[in-house]
């Protein structure tokens, strides 16, 4: 956000510069190119002009030289003409003989090497004399050829020297002949002939420098070349000059062609040089331009780099004053870059960092670059961490500084350092060993815990490869296999247990968990193993396991169902086998409420809500009571306590004991007790008699003893009256004591008179029959009860009436002991009779009673039963009669007896009830 606001500004300020400079530099670059081209053109023109002038001069020199050569030749030829004319004159004068001729001619030839022959040709056109001696041409006697003859004739006719046409003689030598007529008088006697060799003329009549300079040729008018002084063809055809060789005048021309002293290439060299130089200059200009452009681009880039740099760039003077700053200063610190120049850097430093920074800057003076971190004041007053990289250039007395905002990094670093310190301390306090291996299986890291665990030092372990030092020798194959699995990435995610060796040789059990080691780039660089020493835990676990098994065996062996449920969530955390067998084997994890067992919000069960209990409040009794399971219809005694569970939370632990049997026994005991109570009044009578007898025995026995003692003494006559008197008094006291006993018995009997209340007969009958259930079942009989529910209550002592019913039922069942099993049904009925009384009848199908037996049935001490006391029916009748009812027996038409009794209704006895209560 900060960056986004600042960046566009930087762009606009920088963008126009390259466009302008590009246009301007384009124009700049036309000028040097134009100048170079102009210069090249001028130079070429100049060179051309000079060359033209030079060629003109050469041509002039050539013409002059050729003229001069021709003159030289003319002079020589004139000399020879004169010599010949001399000879001719002498001859004509006759002063000349053959020998002289020969001598002088040979001499002349020797002096004039261009001559090859001198001969005297007579008018007969034959050679007469000839020189030199050894000539093979112009032999004496040789006739002249036709051509020669013509020339001779002309010379004779003209009377002056005539030159013949040059020709190539038989020896392939181009020759020129001159005929000088010999005038003897008027006649002509032949002619003196001199033969010039054109080749020799060229070699001997021109100076050496000339021959070196020019190629000379004699050409006929028709153009064919007769002689040439050089075979060298490197001639400058442009530089050639031809002159007529006078006086011969027969068209022989002397042509001089300058040798090419310099090759055309050489001649073109300056031009080429100029052109080349120009091109070179252009090329170098182009190079310079490219270089310049590159420079410009680089500079532009540098400018952009400076301006666009996200880091702060600054140029400072050696005394730490800003000279130039880039826009990043504004972005990071908030100062516009133009504000900073001229201000010392110290102004912006955090006071604590000033001293250190000045030290650093001072160190820069020695030329070494410096990097340091400082806090810098921002425009908004906050400080930012900057890392400065400063380099000084002493020659320029400047420092170049780069500052990077590391506030984020600093805090990140701080966080990282804290994190690192945290991890380090964690790693050091870690008791889990850590071991990292790279992908080849080499150990790259172990933590201190691993070292202390195994006893091997870090140096010994790091870098080692399988087999690792801590591998026991006897188990290497297995460990190698595990390592291979690990490296293949197939290590079990649940880890594996291995026995490894400590340095001191001890074995330890270790558990390894393998996870891939991923570097920052997301590549896997190895495997990290966390190693736990489980030697002790394993032993403890084994013990715990045993303890746990014992615990479970004990708990599962209990008849009582035990469960533990979370107090808050009501979830069952533990249940023993007894519980599961009652409530299902999936009980753990379900809610207690699902089973109808006590759950927390129920205030019937809990006086304190176990969900509100804190761990400090427990253990605490929650519930203790008996509940009936509706499904199994069994009774459970449930004792519930709030306890602290293994993980610290509060749970409810309940022990439910099946008390159905105990309850039944209790019930039976209670019934038994009741029965005892109910019969107690009857029994009391018997006991009373027994107790009475015993109690009375004492005083009566004492009285008898006193009396006999007195009698004996009185008989013997040895007595004292006082003694007799005392004994008699004591006997009298004992008689009194006996009287008290009798009174006590009477009181007791009085106390146990019946109490009458409105009683539901249905309940009485039900209780009595229920009371007899065990006996009924034992005898294989059945009791049918038919008592209308709307029967009005009777006014009676419930216990006594129950006793009567009980007695009658018991008698009836016992009477049916010999009857067939299906006939052993006792019917107990109740209903209102016509007199407005309730009538109860107990009908059995037993052996029945004879008339006689029925008559005696209700008299005391009558019994038909071997173990009977004979009191039952008598008492029953007394009870019923006490209640103003009647008890009698009728024979059952179907066999057996029907005992019936009547009782008055409650509403008829309200007045008597009041009496009775009073």
């Amino acid at each position: 956000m900060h960056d986004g606001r600042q960046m566009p500004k930087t762009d606009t300020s920088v963008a126009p510069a390259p466009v302008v400079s590009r246009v301007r530099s384009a124009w700049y670059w036309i000028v040097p190119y134009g100048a170079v081209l102009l210069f090249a053109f001028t130079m070429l023109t100049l060179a051309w002009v000079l060359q033209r002038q030079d060629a003109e001069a050469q041509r002039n020199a050539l013409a002059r030289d050729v003229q001069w050569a021709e003159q030289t030749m003319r002079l020589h030829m004139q000399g020879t003409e004169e010599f010949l004319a001399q000879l001719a004159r002498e001859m004509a004068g006759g002063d000349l003989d053959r020998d002289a001729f020969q001598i002088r001619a040979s001499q002349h030839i020797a002096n004039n090497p261009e001559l090859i022959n001198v001969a005297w040709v007579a008018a007969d056109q034959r050679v007469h004399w000839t020189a030199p001696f050894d000539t093979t041409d112009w032999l004496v006697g040789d006739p002249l050829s036709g051509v020669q003859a013509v020339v001779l004739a002309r010379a004779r006719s003209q009377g002056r020297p005539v030159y013949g046409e040059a020709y190539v003689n038989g020896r392939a030598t181009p020759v020129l002949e001159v005929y000088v007529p010999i005038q003897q008088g008027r006649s002509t006697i032949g002619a003196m002939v001199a033969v010039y060799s054109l080749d020799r003329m060229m070699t001997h009549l021109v100076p050496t420098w000339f021959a070196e300079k020019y190629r000379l040729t004699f050409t006929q008018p028709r153009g064919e070349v007769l002689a040439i002084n050089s075979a060298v063809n490197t001639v400058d055809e442009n530089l050639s000059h031809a002159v007529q060789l006078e006086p011969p005048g027969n068209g022989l021309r002397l042509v001089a062609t300058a040798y090419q002293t310099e090759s055309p290439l050489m001649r073109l060299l300056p031009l080429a040089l100029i052109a080349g130089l120009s091109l070179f200059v252009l090329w170098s200009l182009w190079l310079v331009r490219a270089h310049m452009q590159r420079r410009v681009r680089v500079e532009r880039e540098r400018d952009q780099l400076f301006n666009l740099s996200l880091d702060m760039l600054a140029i400072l003077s050696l005394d730490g004053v800003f000279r130039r700053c880039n826009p990043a200063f504004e972005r990071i610190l908030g100062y516009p870059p133009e504000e900073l120049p001229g201000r010392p850097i110290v102004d912006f430093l955090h006071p604590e960092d000033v001293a250190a920074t000045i030290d650093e800057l001072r160190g820069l003076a020695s030329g070494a670059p410096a990097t340091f971190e400082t806090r810098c004041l921002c425009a908004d007053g906050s400080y930012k961490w900057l890392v400065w990289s400063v380099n000084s250039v002493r020659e320029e007395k400047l420092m170049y500084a780069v500052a990077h905002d590391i506030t984020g990094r600093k805090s990140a670093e701080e966080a990282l350092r804290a994190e690192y310190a945290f991890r380090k301390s964690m790693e050091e306090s870690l008791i889990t060993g850590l071991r990292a291996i790279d992908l080849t299986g080499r150990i790259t890291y172990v933590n201190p815990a691993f070292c202390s665990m195994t006893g091997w030092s870090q140096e010994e372990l790091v870098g080692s490869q399988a087999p690792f030092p801590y591998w026991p020798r006897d188990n290497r194959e297995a460990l190698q296999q595990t390592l291979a699995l690990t490296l293949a990435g197939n290590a079990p995610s649940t880890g594996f247990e291995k026995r490894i060796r400590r340095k001191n040789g001890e074995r330890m059990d270790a558990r390894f968990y393998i996870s891939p080691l991923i570097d920052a780039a997301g590549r896997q660089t190895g495997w990290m193993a966390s190693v736990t020493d489980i030697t002790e835990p394993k032993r403890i676990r084994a013990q715990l396991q045993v303890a746990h098994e014992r615990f479970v065996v004990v708990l599962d062996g209990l008849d009582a169902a035990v469960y533990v449920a979370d107090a808050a969530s009501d979830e069952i955390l533990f249940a023993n086998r007894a519980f599961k067998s009652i409530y299902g084997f999936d009980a753990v994890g379900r809610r207690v409420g699902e089973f109808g067992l006590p759950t927390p919000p129920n205030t019937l069960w809990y006086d304190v809500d176990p969900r509100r209990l804190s761990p400090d409040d427990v253990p605490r009794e929650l519930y203790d009571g008996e509940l009936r399971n509706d499904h199994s219809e069994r009774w459970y005694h449930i004792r519930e306590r709030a306890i602290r569970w293994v993980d610290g939370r509060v749970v409810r632990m309940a022990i439910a004991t099946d008390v159905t049997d105990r309850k039944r026994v209790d019930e039976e005991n209670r019934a038994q007790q009741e029965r005892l109570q109910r019969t107690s009044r009857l029994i009391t009578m018997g006991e009373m008699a027994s107790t009475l007898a015993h109690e009375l025995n004492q005083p009566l026995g004492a009285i008898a003893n006193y009396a006999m003692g007195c009698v004996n003494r009185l008989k013997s006559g040895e007595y004292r009256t006082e003694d007799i008197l005392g004994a008699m008094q004591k006997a009298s006291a004992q008689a009194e004591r006996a009287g008290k006993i009798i009174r006590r018995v009477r009181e007791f009997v009085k106390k146990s008179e019946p109490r009458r209340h409105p009683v539901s007969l249905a309940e009485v009958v039900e209780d009595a029959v229920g009371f007899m259930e065990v006996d009924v079942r034992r005898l294989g009989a059945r009791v049918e009860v038919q008592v209308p529910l709307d029967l009005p209550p009777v006014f009676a002592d419930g216990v006594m009436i129950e006793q009567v019913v009980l007695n009658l039922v018991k008698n009836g069942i016992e009477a049916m002991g010999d009857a067939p099993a299906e006939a052993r049904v006792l019917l107990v009925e109740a209903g209102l009779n016509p007199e407005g009384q309730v009538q109860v009848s107990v009908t059995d199908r037993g052996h029945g009673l004879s008339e006689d037996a029925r008559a005696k049935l209700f008299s005391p001490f009558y019994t038909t039963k071997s173990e009977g006391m004979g009191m039952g029916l008598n008492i029953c009748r007394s009870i019923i009669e006490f209640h103003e009812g009647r008890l009698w027996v009728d024979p059952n038409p179907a066999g057996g007896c029907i005992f019936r009794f009547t009782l008055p209704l409650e509403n008829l006895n309200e007045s008597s009830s009041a009496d009775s209560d009073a």
Partner: protein
Amino acid sequence: MNPQVLTAMPEQIIYLVDDDEALRDSLIWLLESQGFKVKGYPSAEAFLPEIRPDMTGCLLLDVRMPGGMSGLELHDRLRASFCTLPVIFITGHGDVPMAVSALKKGAVDFIEKPFNDEALLRQVRQCLAQEEENRARRRQDAEVSRRLGQLTQREREVLDLIILGKLNKQIADVLGISIKTVEVHRARVMEKMGAQSLAELVQSVMAIEGVNRG
């Protein structure tokens, strides 16, 4: 037998333990009227300190004494203290089975309340006479035992063989001694045992030997 022994005999006392004071007092009154010496105790606990092995007479003991040691227990304690005092239980109505078990443990008799005074007196007299006879026999046995203890080893061997009915010659053979020596030993045995005849000797020794061997 020996008048001297009879005179030295301690007086027979009737001990009476009954928790009912009236009955106890009236019984003492009755028994004293017949010339018996009677001591009464209100409970078994009160009688315990009186127990001595050489007590003579008899003990009248009420079986049922609520609130303390019962008569049967006291009887056991008496026997445990090697006291040979004969016991007559007084029982009430319904205590008969208890009295029977007491008889099996060595009580002399029992009498059921309410009792006839004549019957009681007869039983007490019978009991005392029996007790006196037993005591005399015990005293005689003790005398024979004391004399037997004075015999030497050899004399004892000779005595044993005599009792088996061996002749002197046979005894000499068995013990590898001369007949003369046997005769000397025999004479000394007779003297030490205070026996006038061979029959008397054998009878007195057999009486206690029979007890010891039984």
